[in-house]
C-alpha cells in the first residue's frame, strides 16, 4: 500500500491532520497484516498438498519460499503500474 494512494492532507487544520495520519497508519498496519495472512494462505494452498508428515518437507519449503518471493515482486510491480495509471488519470483531470 502506498501513502500516495490515500489522501491529501495539506489542506487540513493541524488537529485533523494528526487524526488523519493516525487513521492512515492504522489502515496501513491492518493492510500489511492482512497481506501477510493472505500470502500465507495462498502459498500454503499452492504448495502443501500431502499430510503424511507433521513438518514441512524440503520441496514444500522451497515452493513456499519461491511463492512468497514471487508474490512480493508481483505486488511491487502491480503497485508501480497502478501508481502510473493513477498519476495519468490525475494529470488528465
Amino acid at each position: 500500500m502506498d501513502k500516495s494512494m490515500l489522501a491529501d492532507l495539506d489542506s487540513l487544520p493541524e488537529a485533523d491532520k494528526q487524526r488523519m495520519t493516525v487513521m492512515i497508519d492504522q489502515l496501513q498496519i491492518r493492510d500489511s497484516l492482512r497481506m501477510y495472512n493472505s500470502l500465507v494462505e495462498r502459498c500454503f494452498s499452492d504448495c502443501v498438498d500431502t499430510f503424511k508428515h507433521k513438518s514441512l518437507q524440503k520441496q514444500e519449503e522451497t515452493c513456499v519460499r519461491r511463492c512468497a518471493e514471487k508474490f512480493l515482486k508481483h505486488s511491487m510491480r502491480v503497485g508501480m503500474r497502478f501508481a502510473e495509471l493513477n498519476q495519468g488519470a490525475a494529470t488528465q483531470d
Partner: protein
Amino acid sequence: MASSPSALDKEQIFGMAEKEMEYRVELFNKMTQTCFKKCVDNRYKESELNMGENSCIDRCVSKYWHVTNLIGQLLGSGRPPM
C-alpha cells in the same frame, strides 16, 4: 451552532474518508490477487518473475483499471457509487 461542524458531522467526514481509503486499499488488493492468479504460474519453479509473467502483469493491471472505470460509468459516474 450553525457555523462550525458538530462532533457528529466531523465523525461523518472522517468516516467517509476512512471508507474511501479502505475502498482503494481493497481495490488494490483484489487487483493484485486477481492478476497473480491470471498471470503467475502456480508451480513456482523459480523465484523470479519471467518476461512473459511481467508483461502479463502490466497488461492485467491496465485492463483491470479499464474495467473499474467502465463499471464506474455504468453505475452512473466516473467515481465509485455512493
